[in-house]
C-alpha cells in the first residue's frame, strides 16, 4: 500500500512539475467553454441588411422599424433602385435585402395581399435560411397585428414552443460536447502518454523487474488524471452555470457520477492505447485521430447523427462520447432522472468494463 501511495505521489510530481502541460490541462476546458459559449455559435445576430423601399408608406415604415428593432438585424443602408441590389451584395457586407414594391400599403388594403421580396446571400446557405426565417417571422407578426384590427375569420395560428431551451441557445449543445472532449483529451491522451513515456526512458523495464504488481502501476497512473478531470468538470460546470447561463436542471450528483463513469472509460481507452504503442508520438496521434476526432464527429455535438448515412450511424454507436453526450444532455438540460438514462449508462459501463479488461490483459508482465 505504501508502495502504491508513493507511486501516486510520484505521478503527481510528474504532473505538477510540467507547468506548461498543467496550464494547458487546466486552461483548456475554460478556454473551450468561453470560445464555444461566446464566440463560436450558430446563432445569427446583428446581420447587416439593406432595404429597398419603393413605397415609403405607413405599412413599410412600420415593418422596417420592427426589423431594425429586432436583435437579428442592423439596417446598413437604404437602396434607391433595383439596380443597387447587386452592387450592395457584391460589397459583401450585406446578407439580406428586403424589397417592398411601390404602393405596398394600398395594394395590401385593397386586395388583401401584397408581396415582399427577401433576397438573401446564400453563399452560406444556413445563414441565408436563418435570416429569411427571422425576417418572415417579423413580417408575419406585423400581419397578425393589422389583422387584429379587422374581423377576419378562420385563421390558423401555429404556436411554437422550444422545449428545454426556449431561447435556442447554442451553449446548451456545446457544454456537454466540450465536457466529452476535455475528458477524452485529458484522460485518454495524457494517461497513454505518461505510460508510454516510462517505456521510452527505460524505467518501465526497471518497474517490471521489481516486486510491484503491474496492475498497480497502471492504476497509480490513472489516479492523478482522474482527479484532474474531476476538477475540470467542476470548472466547466461552474463556468456554464454562471457565465453561460446554462442551468443544471437535473441532479448534480447524478451528473457528477456520469462524468466519473466517462472519465473511467477515457482512462481505460488511454491504457489501451498505451498497451499497443511504444512511443509518445504514436500515442498522441492515436489519441487525437482515434479518440478526439470521433468524439467531435460522432457524438452528435457538432453534426447531428440522425442525418448521417446508416453505416456511419452504426459506427457512432461504438463511440463512448456519443452515449456520454446523450446522458449529459438528458440530465443537465432536460433534467431527467436516472430511470431515463439507465440504458445509456449501462452501455457506457459495459464499454468501460470491456476496455479495462482488454487493456489489463494486454498490459504485459514482460517486454514482448
Amino acid at each position, binding site marked *: 500500500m505504501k508502495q502504491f501511495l508513493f507511486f501516486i505521489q510520484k505521478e503527481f*510530481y510528474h504532473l505538477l512539475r*510540467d507547468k506548461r502541460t498543467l496550464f494547458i490541462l487546466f486552461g483548456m476546458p475554460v478556454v473551450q467553454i468561453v470560445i464555444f459559449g461566446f464566440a463560436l455559435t450558430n446563432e445569427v445576430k446583428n446581420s447587416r441588411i439593406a432595404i429597398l423601399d419603393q413605397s415609403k408608406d405607413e405599412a413599410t415604415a412600420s415593418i422596417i422599424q420592427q426589423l431594425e428593432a429586432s436583435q437579428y438585424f442592423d439596417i446598413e443602408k437604404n437602396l434607391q433602385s433595383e439596380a443597387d441590389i447587386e452592387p450592395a451584395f457584391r460589397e459583401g457586407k450585406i446578407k439580406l435585402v428586403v424589397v417592398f414594391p411601390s404602393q405596398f400599403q394600398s395594394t395590401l388594403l385593397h386586395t388583401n395581399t401584397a408581396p415582399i421580396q427577401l433576397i438573401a446571400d446564400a453563399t452560406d446557405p444556413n445563414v441565408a435560411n436563418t435570416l429569411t426565417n427571422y425576417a418572415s417571422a417579423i413580417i408575419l407578426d406585423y400581419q397578425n397585428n393589422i389583422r387584429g384590427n379587422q374581423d377576419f375569420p378562420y385563421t390558423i395560428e401555429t404556436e411554437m414552443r422550444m422545449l428545454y431551451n426556449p431561447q435556442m441557445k447554442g451553449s446548451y449543445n456545446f457544454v456537454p460536447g466540450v465536457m466529452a472532449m476535455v475528458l477524452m483529451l485529458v484522460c485518454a491522451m495524457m494517461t497513454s502518454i505518461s505510460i508510454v513515456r516510462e517505456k521510452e526512458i527505460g524505467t518501465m523495464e*526497471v518497474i517490471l*523487474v*521489481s*516486486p510491484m504488481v503491474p496492475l498497480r502501476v497502471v492504476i497509480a497512473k490513472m489516479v492523478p488524471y482522474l482527479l484532474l478531470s474531476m476538477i475540470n468538470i467542476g470548472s466547466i460546470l461552474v463556468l456554464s452555470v454562471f457565465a453561460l447561463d446554462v442551468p443544471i436542471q437535473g441532479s448534480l450528483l447524478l451528473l457528477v457520477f456520469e462524468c466519473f463513469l466517462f472519465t473511467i472509460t477515457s482512462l481505460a481507452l488511454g491504457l489501451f492505447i498505451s498497451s499497443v504503442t511504444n512511443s509518445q508520438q504514436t500515442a498522441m496521434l492515436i489519441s487525437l485521430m482515434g479518440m478526439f476526432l470521433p468524439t467531435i464527429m460522432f457524438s452528435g455535438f457538432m453534426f447531428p447523427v440522425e442525418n448521417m448515412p446508416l453505416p456511419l450511424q452504426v459506427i457512432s454507436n461504438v463511440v463512448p462520447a456519443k452515449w456520454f453526450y446523450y446522458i449529459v444532455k438528458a440530465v443537465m438540460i432536460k433534467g431527467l432522472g436516472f430511470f431515463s438514462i439507465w440504458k445509456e449508462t449501462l452501455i457506457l459501463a459495459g464499454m468501460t468494463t470491456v476496455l479495462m479488461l482488454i487493456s489489463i490483459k494486454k498490459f504485459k508482465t*514482460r*517486454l514482448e
Partner: protein
Amino acid sequence: MIAVKVNSVKKTFKAEKSVVTALQQINFEVSKGELFGLIGPDGAGKTTLFRILTTLMLADEGAASVDGFDVVRDYKEIRKRVGYMPGRFSLYQDLTVEENLSFFATLFNTSLEENYDLVKAIYQQIEPFKKRRAGALSGGMKQKLALSCALIHRPSVLFLDEPTTGVDAVSRKEFWELLRDLQKHQITIIVSTPYMDEASLCDRVALMQNGKIMEINSPKGITENFKKPLWAVRGENMYQLMQTLQASEAIDSCYPFGQYHHVTFTHAIPDSQVASELAKIASVVEVKRIPATIEDCFMELMRQ
C-alpha cells in the same frame, strides 16, 4: 555457489521478412560474488541476454536460472532479488536525486536508510546534489545515481547493461572502482560493455559477437591464449602503411590501434629479424614487441 546459470539459450526475432538470430547456444555460469563481463560490439546480443535473465523476455530454447530460480517459472522470485540497470535507463528527469532514490527504494519495499551501508560509497558522491533534478546531473553522476537506484534493495545479482556508455574516462574509472567495491558485499555483478579496456577489470569475461559467445575466461587467461608474437608498428604515413601491410603475404593481420598498428606474421620470425623483414615491405619508423590486450584477442577471435 552458482548465481547465474545459462544453458543453451537461443533467441530469435522476427524482422520484416527474415528471422534475426539474436542469441544462439549461449552457455555460461557465474559464481556468487563474481564480477562477470559481457564484452562485445553493438548488436552482439548483450541486451537480449540481459532481458532474458531479468525475466523481461522469454528464450526460444534453453533454460536459465538466477539465484537458483528458473527465469520463466519463478520470475516473480527473481524480480524480488535482482537489480537491473537497463542500457537506456535515464531515471526520472523531473524528479530530484532524493526522490528518484526513494521511489526505487519504495518500489522494492525498502528505504535508503535500510541499506545505506551498501550505497554509501556512491551516494556520498551524489549527496551534495540531492535536491537537484536528475535531468540536471552530468552523465557520470546520472550513472552513479542509476547504480544507487539499482542497488537500493540489496540485490543478490546485479545486471548492468552498458553502464559506462557515453560516460567520460574519469567517471568510467570511478564507476568501475565502485563495482569492485561492491564485491565485498557478496553481490554478483554481470556487466556488459562495448569497451574492451574495461574487460581487464572483470573477474571473468565472455567475448560475444553476433549472438555467440566466442570465449569465456579470465582476462589474463584470454590474453595468454594469444600465442603469436604481436608487434606494434609505426610509420610516416599510417594509412598507407596499413594498406601495404595488409596486402603483404608475410603479414597475417594488421589493424590500427591508437598510435600504432598491431601486426602479426604468417610464419614465425626471430625477434631480431622483424625490423628488417618489415623494412622490406614498407617504410617503418618504430617497431616493438608488445603483450596482447583483450582487444587483440577479440580481433583474432573474430577473424576465426
